């Protein structure tokens, strides 16, 4: 069910946009102002709900009234409590985690809770980022106070309403499990006082619970969508079939940004079910051909039948082998200095590690292929998409359609994974879908169009984790102490040329390229970068820069420990600075729980260790691996997670398990996107390989107890996995993995 009840937002844009622009400008908007603005929205929302036929939800469920102290929460007379999730849900569990925050402060019964994904609107912007988005592992930590305050305010209003009815002071009332309990034992449900509460003023100030009182936050809580996702009833973006929808697939240029030279669409048009064929603008200034049909199958058959001669004349044609050579040459030269240090002791150091690392492009390959439904009309555009980037996409859709952002309705759909691919600064797949809809409209047709990507389109569609070369020269003294470390990174900047450039690219250094290099180790590390320009679109991929930086750091520290003849755990702890106590805590916990150094391993098995902080969370892994007939195998992972306050331990464990599998996937054969003459070599899961069930190690996750506000969890579990595995392989074989995916035979 979508959130048409949020449409009330459109009627009071002045409050919202004023607040939003303050937020976007980074002005210190007080929480109180925010809540008041939200309260105004709540009023509009409720009124909108009473317009007959104005929304599907009202018609379908026919509740008599609804209470919404603000646009994030709806307490219905039937006692259901629906939370608007200001994010995309694509597996990470926020449509359970955010309702937990509200339910906690509201004292709701968990069985009352429901959640819906909010459409694009200013009120749903991330309180820190200033745009509506899902990324940077930021949902729970950024909205931790925001959602709790919403719950606390709603609770105060419900209590006030009940107290008024009973003619007792509100402070004499208690709440528990969705009920208000009066001083003489009177009991009333939230739903039954919701209407009365709606008429009361929004409280200026509420006090949040002392964490000691928490009974929902911190409790392992199954997902609200677990049943729907087990019986096939959960609707994803791809399952959206608005009345009269037609399906389009697009033949995109085989080299990024190329154009259509010659097109013969006659065979495609002859296929039954194919309605029309249009040449359209595609990403990066390219041109493509859209085939529109009654369904996906005829559309795809139509596309297969197109005869297209591509015009590749104006575009750079990247080949991976040439790129690698060029990157290696650059890595040997000093680049833009990102971190300076005195490395004068390097030349005379008695021991040295000289290492060069290679990382390929990686596709995100979420299980649900990209798709986008566009219903374009004169003066309006309604879009349905599983997007991580509502604010940016809404603007891009408006520009492409020649509309104002407020004429664009962008509905957030449940998404089958994303891992970063649905947070695109260029809004590539949405802009393209609008271009298809424009062509369709220009041909005199009307109605919604669903643009669908095949798996091949997805694998070859760009926006990859950038390929990188790292080069490190480390000098060690006789006892194995690191005395100088010269480090160079070569790769494409993700953020240059995007709206994030001004904030996150400083003096030519993209923060995402270097995150996780250096800290927490107290070593004299000089870091420089080379920004390569390549005609391959790149993007963040679960844990972004840490996908490669953690690997380099954690394998090199391990190697230095071996050179020093030290235990790699003890060596790390000695080098971790005093301002990184969480690293030590996490490392100690993983070591203790795994039995590292105490438990005897089976013959041919070895330990590997790594620790890394990303998105504010420290993750330490102790792994057990073997090498059988030249094939490395990961058997067991013991993880310690320091994510501060653990809101939903069940979800934290799931995120760690998932990140471990994805991190492991980067080490396995076939985990690479390569190009030849500008064309991507891989096509599907047959040649772009991902981890499968037999690859999954036994995973045991432990959470460090903490009372500090939560830090990120969607991504931090990924970075330390591959280096821990590599360190175990090095222990077993003496060979250092310098290349991902692992290639032990040629290491």
């Amino acid at each position, binding site marked *: 069910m979508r959130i048409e009840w949020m449409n009330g937002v459109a009627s009071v844009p002045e409050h919202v946009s004023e607040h939003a622009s303050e937020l976007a400008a980074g002005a210190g908007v007080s929480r109180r102002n925010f809540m008041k603005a939200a309260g105004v929205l709540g009023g509009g929302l409720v009124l909108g709900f009473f317009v007959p036929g104005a929304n599907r939800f009202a018609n379908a469920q026919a509740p008599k009234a609804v209470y919404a102290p603000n646009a994030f929460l709806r307490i219905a007379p039937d006692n259901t409590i629906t939370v608007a999730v200001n994010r995309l849900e694509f597996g990470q569990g926020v449509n359970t985690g955010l309702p937990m925050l509200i339910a906690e402060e509201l004292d709701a019964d968990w069985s009352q809770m429901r959640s819906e994904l909010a459409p694009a609107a200013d009120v749903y912007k991330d309180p820190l980022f200033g745009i509506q988005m899902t990324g940077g592992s930021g949902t729970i930590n950024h909205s931790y106070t925001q959602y709790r305050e919403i719950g606390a305010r709603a609770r105060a209003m419900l209590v006030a309403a009940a107290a008024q009815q009973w003619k007792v002071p509100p402070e004499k009332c208690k709440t528990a499990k969705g009920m208000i309990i009066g001083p003489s034992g009177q009991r009333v449900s939230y739903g039954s006082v919701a209407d009365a509460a709606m008429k009361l003023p929004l409280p200026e100030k509420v006090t949040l619970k002392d964490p000691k009182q928490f009974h929902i936050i911190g409790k392992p809580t199954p997902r609200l969508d677990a049943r729907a996702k087990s019986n096939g009833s959960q609707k994803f973006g791809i399952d959206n079939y608005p009345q009269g929808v037609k399906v389009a697939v697009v033949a995109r240029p085989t080299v990024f940004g190329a154009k259509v030279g010659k097109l013969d669409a006659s065979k495609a048009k002859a296929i039954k079910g194919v309605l029309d064929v249009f040449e359209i603008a595609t990403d990066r200034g390219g041109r493509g051909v859209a085939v529109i049909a009654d369904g996906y199958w005829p559309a795809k058959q139509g596309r297969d039948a197109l005869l297209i001669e591509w015009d590749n004349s104006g575009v750079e044609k990247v080949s991976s082998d040439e790129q690698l050579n060029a990157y290696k040459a650059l890595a040997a030269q000093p680049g833009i200095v990102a971190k300076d240090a005195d490395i004068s002791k390097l030349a005379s150091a008695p021991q040295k590690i000289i290492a060069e690392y290679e990382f390929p492009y990686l596709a995100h390959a979420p299980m649900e292929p990209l798709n986008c439904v566009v219903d374009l009309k004169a003066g309006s555009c309604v879009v349905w998409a599983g997007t991580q980037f509502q604010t940016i996409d809404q603007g891009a859709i408006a520009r492409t359609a020649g509309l104002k952002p407020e004429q664009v309705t962008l509905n957030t759909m449940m998404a089958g994974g994303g891992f970063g691919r649905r947070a695109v600064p260029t809004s590539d797949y949405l802009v393209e879908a609008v271009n298809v809809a424009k062509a369709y409209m220009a041909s005199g047709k009307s109605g919604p169009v669903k643009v669908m990507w095949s*798996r091949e389109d997805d694998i070859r569609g760009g926006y990859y984790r950038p390929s990188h070369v790292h080069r490190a020269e480390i000098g060690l003294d006789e006892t194995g102490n690191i005395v100088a470390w010269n480090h160079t990174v070569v790769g494409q900047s993700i953020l240059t040329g995007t709206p994030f450039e001004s904030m996150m690219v400083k003096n030519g250094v993209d923060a995402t390229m270097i995150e996780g290099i250096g800290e927490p180790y107290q070593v004299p590390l000089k870091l420089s970068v080379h920004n390569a320009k390549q005609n391959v679109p790149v993007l963040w991929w679960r844990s972004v820069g840490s996908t490669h930086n953690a690997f380099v750091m954690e394998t090199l520290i391990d190697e230095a420990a071996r050179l020093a003849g030290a235990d790699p755990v003890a060596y790390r702890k000695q080098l971790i600075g005093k301002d990184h106590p969480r690293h030590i805590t996490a490392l100690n916990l993983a070591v203790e729980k795994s039995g590292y150094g105490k438990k005897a391993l089976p013959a041919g098995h070895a330990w590997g260790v790594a620790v890394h902080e990303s998105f504010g969370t420290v993750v330490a892994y102790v792994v057990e691996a073997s090498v059988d007939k030249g094939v490395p195998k990961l058997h067991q992972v013991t993880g310690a997670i320091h994510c501060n306050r653990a809101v939903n331990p069940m979800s934290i464990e*799931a995120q760690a398990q*998932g990140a471990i599998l994805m991190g492991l996937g980067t080490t396995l054969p076939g985990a690479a996107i390569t190009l030849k003459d500008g064309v991507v070599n891989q096509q*599907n*899961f047959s040649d772009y390989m991902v981890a499968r*069930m*037999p690859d999954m190690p036994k995973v045991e996750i432990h959470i460090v107890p903490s009372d500090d506000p939560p830090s990120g969890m969607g991504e931090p579990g990924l970075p330390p996995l591959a280096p821990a595995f590599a360190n175990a392989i090095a222990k077993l074989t003496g060979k250092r993995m310098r290349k991902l995916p692992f290639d032990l035979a040629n290491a």
Partner: protein
Amino acid sequence: MVTLNINGHDTQVEADPSTPILWTLRDNLNMTGTKFGCGAALCGACTVHLNGQPIRSCVTPISAAVGQKITTIEAMESDKVGKAVQDAWVKHDVPQCGYCQSGQVMSATALLKSNKNPSDADIDSAMSGNICRCGTYQRIRAAIKDASKALA
């Protein structure tokens, strides 16, 4: 017009006989529980049962299913084994994004129908054709074992 037996009902569909079962289910019949993941029998998201055997509906034309019995995720709640699998999925909080889970449930149900007490190796083998990018494999293993116990 092609007649297909889907979840025990004879259903007439207006589709070319070469159309894969997947697209007939989704685009003709609006049965969206069966998912499109790869279109090439590589990921298992589209798994349905044909006469009880798990098949990849994205590469199986409806012409191959005429006179046969197609069973989809939508029928699993009324199937003893399928329901036990789904209950175990919920108990173990298996799904993350959930997109692959229809296919996982269909493969797991087929496994338990042919092997009441699968070992880890049996599970890995039967489920290796179903990709989950979110990494729910460990919980799937546990849930299959749990379902097996519940059915014993």
